[in-house]
């Protein structure tokens, strides 16, 4: 069975979903979904092990060898991202039972888990596949599931947010479809490796440039790269807290993966440099994103929204890393992809705990929480420090490599701006800290208890991850390093 891991990785959640539909008890559905999630995670670990020891794996679906059939291709990069996505996915599922209990009516919870599994399967499918049209199909699975998940939020604005995301997402997907169409008309193939082999021949053509441009724009819409981020804050704010935790930690990461995969593996570095200077564009948009989003975050009265904007900013950092275009830069991006998943996973799960106790994520709700929910708030503080990039947290590791990359590339101003950006993070994180620790909970309000273990344990697992991988960054750094090296050469 071991040689079938690549497909099992995706098919288990994909088929678990309809099976889950047959169980009509919320708790049952949850147990089943969680089991599936954990199995997926286990598989991703095995896959990573396999890839590390025996190189990239290719799996011919339907027994038709690529490029005629659809190929699943797991290299270090995809294994790494699969690990992040399935890990967070499983962890959030563990917390879900309690997490959704106050936000989604019991009757709808089975369907919720079905949707969740479909979303997970879609995301994993995007990462695992080596066929560019298959990317589109699984992109749509995850997207449709995402829209449904977001729309489950209690506030009516969740519906509006979901609709906006649906429109933007579909436009993005259609752009990608157009791009794929051009590529196909030029090369007659859909397999990524095959494409990579055939593209150089037609690198000069306008059609190829446009295909590249449309695909990049389409992905960037999904990625919420400034200024295409407008759908994200509402979506994250009004979605059920659990969903936000899941999406924030995985969805945008997969989009980043897709961008990296297409730019470096399919089109090849600097494919369209002459026509569109992508690196420069990424640098600029990334940095502008960091600043605009951080500044907006500072003013948000709703903490969920605050961290949503912070996500936009953090995506900016990843894009900057790509913009630097060196090995270290890409390594920084990949590291931050992993680290940011840990940070935001922990933060949004903690917010889910707060929402569970107080039914709100408004900053006023946080008054005096330092005493009322010490463990939850401690998680938020550590997550926040990690966002800032304080040493001994993963955030520091990301910052270190990012700044190192810019300095190596002699991009001094960029380095300075990155660090200024993290100072803005200090401001918005500290707003929460001050309110939680130095303001008294107004008298007369109901007493708040610490969050239930079902939420605390997953949250703290992620927090510990934040610290562990901040102190023992060897594992992630090497992994990201060799993955980056596989993409653009340079010292692994």
């Amino acid at each position, binding site marked *: 069975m071991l040689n079938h891991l690549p497909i099992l990785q995706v098919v288990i959640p994909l088929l678990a979903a309809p099976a889950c539909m047959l169980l009509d008890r919320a708790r049952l559905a949850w147990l089943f979904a969680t089991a599936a999630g954990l199995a997926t995670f286990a598989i991703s670990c095995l896959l990573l092990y396999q890839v590390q020891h025996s190189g990239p794996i290719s799996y011919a679906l339907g027994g038709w060898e690529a490029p005629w059939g659809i190929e699943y291709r797991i290299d270090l990069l995809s294994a790494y991202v699969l690990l992040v996505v399935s890990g967070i996915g499983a962890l959030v599922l563990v917390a879900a039972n309690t997490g959704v209990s106050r936000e989604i009516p019991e009757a709808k919870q089975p369907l919720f888990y079905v949707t969740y599994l479909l979303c997970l399967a879609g995301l994993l499918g995007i990462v695992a596949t080596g066929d560019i049209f298959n990317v589109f199909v699984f992109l749509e699975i995850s997207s449709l599931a995402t829209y449904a998940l977001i729309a489950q939020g209690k506030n009516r604005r969740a519906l509006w947010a979901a609709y906006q995301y649906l429109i933007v997402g579909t436009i993005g997907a259609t752009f990608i479809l157009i791009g794929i169409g051009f590529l196909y008309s030029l090369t007659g193939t859909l397999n990524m490796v095959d494409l990579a082999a055939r593209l150089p021949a037609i690198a000069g053509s306008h059609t190829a440039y446009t295909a590249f441009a449309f695909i990049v724009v389409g992905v960037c819409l999904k990625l919420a790269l400034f200024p295409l981020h407008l759908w994200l804050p509402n979506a994250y704010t009004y979605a059920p807290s659990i969903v936000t935790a899941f999406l924030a930690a995985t969805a945008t990461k997969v989009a980043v993966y897709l961008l990296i995969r297409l730019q470096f593996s399919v089109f090849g570095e600097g494919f369209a440099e002459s026509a569109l200077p992508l690196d420069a564009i990424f640098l600029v948009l990334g940095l502008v994103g960091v600043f605009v989003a951080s500044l907006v975050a500072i003013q948000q009265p709703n903490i969920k929204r605050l961290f949503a904007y912070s996500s936009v900013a953090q995506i900016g950092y990843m894009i900057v890393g790509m913009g630097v275009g060196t090995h270290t830069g890409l390594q920084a991006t990949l590291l931050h992809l992993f680290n940011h998943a840990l940070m935001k996973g922990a933060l949004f799960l903690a917010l889910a705990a707060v929402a569970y106790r107080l039914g709100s994520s408004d900053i006023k709700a946080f008054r005096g929480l330092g005493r009322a929910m010490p463990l939850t708030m401690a998680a938020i503080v550590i997550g926040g*420090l990690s966002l*800032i*990039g*304080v*040493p*001994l947290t993963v955030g520091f*590791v990301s*910052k*270190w*490599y990012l*700044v*190192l990359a810019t*300095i*190596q590339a002699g991009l001094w101003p960029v*380095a*300075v701006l990155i*660090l*200024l950006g*993290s*100072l803005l993070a*200090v401001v918005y994180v*500290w707003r929460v800290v*001050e309110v939680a*620790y*130095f303001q008294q909970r107004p008298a007369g309000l109901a007493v708040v208890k610490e969050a239930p273990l079902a939420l605390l344990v997953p949250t703290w697992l992620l927090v510990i991850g934040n610290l562990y991988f901040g*102190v*023992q*960054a*060897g594992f992630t*750094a*090497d992994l990201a*390093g060799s993955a980056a090296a596989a993409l653009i050469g340079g010292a692994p």
Partner: protein
Amino acid sequence: MMSLSPQLAIVLALALPLVGGAGILLSGRRPNLREGVTLVSALALLAVVATLVPQVLAGERPQVTLFELLPGLEIRFVVEPLGMLFATVAAFLWPVNSLYSIGYMRGNNEQHQTRFYFFFAVAIAAAMGIAFAGNLVTLFVFYEVLTLSTYPLVTHKGSEQAMGAGRTYLGILIATSIGLLLPAIIWTWHLTGSGDFTPGGIIGDSLEGPLLVLLLLMFMFGIGKAAIMPVHRWLPAAMVAPTPVSALLHAVAVVKAGVFSVLKIVVYVFGLDTLRGAPGVELLLYAAGFTVVAASVVALRQDNLKRRLAYSTIGQLSYVVLGAAILAPLSVVGAALHVAVHALGKITLFFAAGAIYTASKKTEISQLDGIGWRMPWTMGAFAIGALSMIGVPPAAGFLSKWYITMGAIQAGEWLALGVIVISTLLNAAYFLPILYQAFFKAEQGGGKDHGEAPLPAVVALCFTALLTLVVFLFPGVPFELASHLGAEAQP
């Protein structure tokens, strides 16, 4: 105890305060036990650090590597004379300060005392980490830990004012460290492929001219804790904190960590030879000199006792920077020595200020007429501390100033010399009036009737005052350590 292996001693020096902190949290419900834990772990730490001194004096450089943060980035500790000196000072003053804190915190029945003692312990651990740091990254890590762990102490009161002070404190320290220090470190890493502290420096000729000076200034201003103007504002702001915290900031850990890092980086990263003769390097000298004079002038115009002390600290710190900037071995010795003696003097002064507040609730200098007769011990100690600041024998302050001056003459830095002379006069000008008021003016009526502060406080401050004298007469350990540093600075 002497059988303790140096490696273990280093680890213990870091662990003990943390263990103590844990104990404090656990015993939070029972104050006596809690304070007991604090004192015990403080004394234990002192004992452990003491075991290291002879080895360092014997020329050994014990070291431990805890773990690898990133590939090639280790959390590594090496004990060299300067770090030893700083560690000794911190470890020595922690018990004293704890003793004082007990008196103060109870005397003013402050809130959240457990939180206070806990973060205090963490801060000490961080100080140890800084003192023994074997490379820039380790230094940076613990530097930030120190900043964060002292933040709750600065905002201890939780009042709006305290919050504001906290923001300034955190704002400036984080901004400078992340905005300047970190890139400087990464730059150094990029240049030399390492960040290890090595006698004679590691920069060598990998960088020249303006860029070298730029890097130097990035380091110097990046270390906000050294409070070189204009990044000094956090220090006066932090005055809202309880006096023991001020003592911690000004004497035990924080600012000392700052100037310590400055010295360390000048000597062990750049190396005096590399800097000497580099065009524009005197900028640092100017900055320090300006800070010394300007701070003293500002101090003159403060009526609030603690604020005046705060500005005096800013001035005194820049002596150390000055000592480093003169780039002469002798001045470096003086600078190192100053770290220690200023600690003793300043902690005495703050203890006294705190004692006055505890006993009489007076904070302004103008209220202090005749207080000397109500609190003879306190004000006596204050007098000694003041003399030490001015640099008059028989107070220890004289020693360090002497060596810095010698260094200035040796290096022919007449500007530095001038600065020292002027600032000494200014110091006298803002300390002596206080003593005059306290002893030779009649008390205004209406003040509340009071005697000395609670006993622990008085004992503590007399002890430190006594030490300032003792160190003058028998410089012993601090002096030897300092001169070892001088030797390493000029291999």
